[in-house]
Each structure stands twice: as structure tokens, then as C-alpha cells.
């Protein structure tokens, strides 16, 4: 269906032990779990965890492609994503903590004052 890149012949055997489409299925599954978690859960912390899951599904995919193409750029990129995600988690959790302190609640349905 999609024109997948053909793996170059000189990649090590140990990497070829797990085919690329396994990684693809795994990260897609993780990503969909994350989306469903975000859409269905109402607890802010769980939604947050689901977002992290989606983020890491993408990271995993990046790493897999990078290995199969013998291209280290994506691995560097993933480190950046992880660093930024860590910073984002710090800020996001701090916000959730503040919301909890003020409302004794982390239900996103509860915070709906910002509207028309």
C-alpha cells in the first residue's frame, strides 16, 4: 500500500532479526491506545499518561526507521524529543497539581469555565 523504504543491504544481522513492520505495528498500537486513552478518560493525569504513550510510540518508530536506514540523525532527534517531553511533563504536572490544590479534583469535565 505505502512505498516503504527498502532496507540497505549492509545493516547488521542482529537488527534484521526483528522485521521492520513489527515495530510499525507495535508503535501504531501504542499510538492508538494513547489516542483512545486521551479521548475516553476524564482524569487529567491519565490523559497525560496517554499523551506520553503517544509520544513514545512515535519515538519508537523513529528509532526503528533510523536503525534500518543506518542513519543516526533520528536517534539524536529522539533524544531531543525526550528532553523536551521531560520539560513538558514538569510543567504539565505542575499545572495539574495546582488545579488539584485549588479544586480538589483532576476531572477535565470539571474545568469548563473557559467558553463563549
Amino acid at each position, binding site marked *: 500500500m505505502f512505498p516503504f523504504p527498502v532496507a540497505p543491504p549492509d545493516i547488521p544481522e542482529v537488527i534484521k532479526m526483528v522485521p521492520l513492520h513489527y515495530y510499525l505495528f507495535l508503535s501504531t498500537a501504542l499510538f492508538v491506545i494513547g489516542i483512545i486513552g486521551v479521548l475516553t478518560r476524564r482524569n487529567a493525569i491519565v490523559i497525560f499518561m496517554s499523551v506520553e504513550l503517544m509520544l513514545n510510540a512515535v519515538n519508537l518508530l523513529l528509532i526503528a526507521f533510523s536503525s534500518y536506514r543506518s542513519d543516526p540523525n533520528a536517534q539524536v532527534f529522539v533524544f531531543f524529543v525526550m528532553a523536551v517531553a521531560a520539560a513538558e511533563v514538569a510543567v504539565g504536572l505542575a499545572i495539574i497539581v495546582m488545579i488539584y490544590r485549588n479544586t480538589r479534583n483532576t476531572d477535565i469535565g470539571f474545568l469548563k469555565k473557559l467558553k*463563549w
Partner: protein
Amino acid sequence: MSVSLLLLIPLLPFAGFLINGLGFKRIPNSAAGGLGVLAALGSFAASLYAFSLFKENGSETVIAPVFDWISVGTLNIPFSFQIDQLSLLMLLIITGVGSLIHIYSLGYMKHDEGFGKFFAYLNLFLFFMLLLVMGSNYVMMFIGWEGVGLCSYLLIGFWNRNTSYNNAARKAFIMNRIGDLGFLLGIFAIIAAFGSVEFSEIFAKAGAFSVGDPVIVTITLLLFVGAMGKSAQIPLYTWLPDAMAGPTPVSALIHAATMVTAGIYMVIRSNVLYSLAPVTLEVVAIIGAATAILGASIGLLQNDIKKVLAYSTVSQLGYMFIALGVAAYSASMFHVITHAFFKALLFLGAGSVIHAMSDEQDIRQMGGLRKHLPVTFITFLIATWAISGLPPFAGFFSKDEILAHAFAHNKVLWGLGILGSVMTSFYMFRLLFLTFFGEFRGTEAQAHHLHESPSSMTIPLIILAVLSAAGGFIGVPEVLHGSNQLAAFMSPLFEGARKVNPGLFAPIGLSHSTEYMLMGISVGAALLAAIAAYVIYVQRGSVPAPESVERRGLEKLVYNKYYIDELYEAVFVKPVRILSDVLWSFGEFVIDLFVEGFGALVIFLSGKARKLQTGFTGYYIFAMVLGIVLFLFWNLVVKHNSAFKDLL
């Protein structure tokens, strides 16, 4: 005569205006008044000096260019001054009478909160009036012409908390604008015909036109429309009586002595053109005579002291136009001068009376004031005597000269002049007797308050009274063993006119006995009218009926000023109002429909669209996911799949 001296004459009042106008409210009243008076006096001194220099240099016309102003194609309009007999006479009147009125205002306006503003406006008026008479071309005259109109507007509406005063100011301004349009068209016609606006160039080229040339007739008629507006002639005179809403010194300065004579100045200045157009001169004479009679007849029944004087001014301006119409230009100027003296005096005297009467202007409430206001009474008497044309005061000589010329030209014109003079004498003595003789008819409070005005007001009255008494001696006619110095002084002005139309200036050829007879008739008639007024208002002591009494027939017609105001209201004002209402409602409806419609549409649509913002976080996330899915579907599936090719 240096340019700097000439520049000083208008610039002194302008400096006074700038200082008083910009520093209004910060400059104490004493300083503001002193400054205004000093500016006027300084200008007067400079004018006197210019006059003496002019005499010394053998009465040569001086044209002093200040700077190049407008230069378009072949048309060149310099900013320059022309000093000759005519502008010098006007300069002396404007600055001389103007200074006296400034001094008078010190006393009259003392308790007014707008004291500094008043002096700023007066000085600005002087500036524009001086520009008007000093300019060496029609465009500079026009600037002055518009400027004095503006000052007139500002000063009529000086007490701007009163709506009817504001309306009077607007009326004056609008009627003047109608005249100004004629004047402006006249200037354009001059540019088209002569390619220049400089007096000296135009009058030099005028010789090329024959007498009665339609181009010249058109130009002079258009210019005369301007004069009608500014000098309050039929049909544009109704603003002048209403202009009495302004403070009394303003009435004296602007609406009696100076601004309203601008039209006469303009005609005398353009005498070469007017002499080439006998048709226009006839029109001028007829309108002048009609205005003289109309103004005087309305004056007969007015009961407001300033209104009587206003109609008297309209009537006297009519006399000046009669003189212009019979090409007696110097006689007209003579009347301008004497009228400036006695009419300013009458207005200032009236101001003194109003001041003493606690702002009462109705002569039915006055009476017996001569005991309380002796100086005002004597000066007012002199002025009344002068305006009535009784010898030996100023009005006699000037009016007599006009009537003699009118007689030589056309007997009917003379008859109308005599009729006007009889009425003038009657209404002026009526005013005098009702105000100063008999018993006091006002309230107790007013009687208690009666007092002679302070010396700052009486001294100008006395000086003007002397001038009104003696001012006529500058033009004693030859028949009375005088030499008519004024006519001799002014005669170089009319040399150009004499060259282009010699027939107009033929000696009037009245024998001495005829002249004596004419004088006898006019003096006798005026005296009879004065005696009649004495019998009615002093001996019988009758007082005009109060407002509530129903008047009948002719009396009602005259008392209501021939319903001219009502006529104009119905014929001009109402239709314009209706038209503007229609246009306004058109704008209100069509334009507002567009503008407000767009606004309403945006408000409506955004009112719907904002409901999308529900505030539920889950909803936003769902929308986001849906968006991403659609986006991916489009980019990855639709774009690359042949199954969808037909759709694209």
C-alpha cells in the same frame, strides 16, 4: 515710504490678536485691554505717519511689494500694499475710529468674562480690515473681505451661550457668503478678461474696452453682488439688523463705521470699471435708493435702540450707493467718513445708555435720561443733529453733496433721497426724544442704578462728537465759499475713469441759486421732521404701543419689517431645510443600512460560531483528533489513490 512702516500698520493689531488670543485666560484683564488698545493706537500712529509721508512726497501712489505670493502660469499675484488717497483715508478711519472704540470697550466690557477674547477678536478684525484696504490687488482685498466676515461672525456671536445670538451670527455669515460668491466670480471674470488682479494693471488695460462693454458690465455687477452682501443692500441687508446681537462696540466698529463700508471702498477702488459700465451704475443707484428708503421706513417704528440705529445704517449705506451710482465717488467717500464718525458715536452713545439701563434696549422703558447721562445726551444730540443732515454738522455737508449730484443726475433719485432724509431725521429725533426726554419709564431697580458711564467711555464719545460736529469741514462745497478739500484730495483717484468715460464726469452745472434751493429744501424738510417728532414725543408725550397691541394695515407691515425675513424664511430657508432633511434621511437610511447591516451580519454569524467553544476539554481533543485524521486521510489516501482521482 518704506515697506516696514506699511507692514507695521496691519501687523500691530495682528500681534495684539496673537498675544491676546493665545494667552487668553492667562493674561490679566488689565494687560489684555491695554495691549489691545496699544495695538490699535500704534497702528493709528503708523497710519498718520504714512499719511504725512504721502503728503510730503507729492501724493504719489505707492505700491510696496512684500513678497511674491501666487505665481501660476501667466497669472502673478504678489502680496503687496497700495497706498494712495483712498487707502489712506480708509486707514485713518479704521485705525482712528477703531482706536476710540477700543478705548470705549475698556469700560464697556469691563465686567465681561470674555474680556481678553473680545480684544483679541477686535484686533483680528482691524488686521483683516487693514489688509482689505491696503492690498494692491483683488485677491488681497478678498482675503481681508473674508477675514472681516469671519470676525463679524465671531463678534456677533460673542455671547455664544445665547442661541438666538448664534443664529444671528450664522445669518450674517451665510448672507455675506452669498455676496462673497458674487465677488469671487467677479474676480475670476477679471482674471479672464485682464489676466491680472493688480489694480494698477487692470485699470491701465481698462481703456481698451468701450463704454458699456458687456464684459465690464458683468464684472461690475458681480463685484456689486459682493458689495450688496458686505454693505447690507437690498436684497442681502437682513443680516445687519440681526447683527446687533453682538456687543455694542462691535456694532459701532464693524457694523457701522468700517466693515459695512467695505463695499463702498471696493466700488470706489474699481471706479474705472464702474465708470465704463453705466448700466451697473444705474443698478447701483436704484438699489441704493431703494435701500435708503426701505431702511429708513423700517427705522421709523422700531423700538429697540440698536435696531433703529441698525436700520439707519442700512439706509445711510443706501445713500452712499446712490452717490456711487451717480459717479459721485468722492461724495460717497465723504459720507463714509462722516457716517463713520456720527454712527460710531450714536452706537457708542446707545451703548452708554444700555450700560446705564442695566442692559435694557427698549426705548419704551427709557425716557428722561438726559439728567442722568449729561455727556451721553449732549454727544448723542450732536450725532443726531449730524445724521439728520442739519447744518453745520458733518452729515449736512456729505448728504448735501450726494443729493446735489443725485439732483443733477436724476430728479426722482433726488426726491427719494429727500424722502429718506425726512424719515432719517424723524426716526433719529424720535429715538433721541424717547430716550432722553420726558419721564423715566423703566423699573425702580433701573432708576436706582442709572449713572453716567466711566471716563474711558465718555472720552471717546466726546472726541467722536467733536469729529461729528467738525468733520464736515473737510468737504465744504464751493457754493458755501469752501474749496471741498476732500474732493480735491481724492481727484487723482478718478483720473483713469475720467479718461475712459469723460462724459460721466462733466461738471454737474448747477447754478448757485439751485444749490441753495436744494440745501434749503433738504434742511427744511429734515427740520420739519424733527419738529414733528418733537411735537409727537415731547409735547404730547406719546410712547410707542407695547408689543401686545395689535397693529393694523401699513403700520403692521412696516413694524414687521415688511415681512422680508419671513419671506426669505419661506422662499429660501425652508426649501433648503427640506432638501437637507431629505438628503439627511437618505444618508440615514441607505448608508446606515449598509454600514449597520454589515455590523449586524458579523455579530449574528459570530454569535453562532462562538458556540463551538464549549469549554469541554474532551470536545477539543476530539475535534483535534478528528482534524488530524481527516488531514492524514486526505494527504495519504486521497492524494495517492487512483480510486479518488475522479473526485479531484
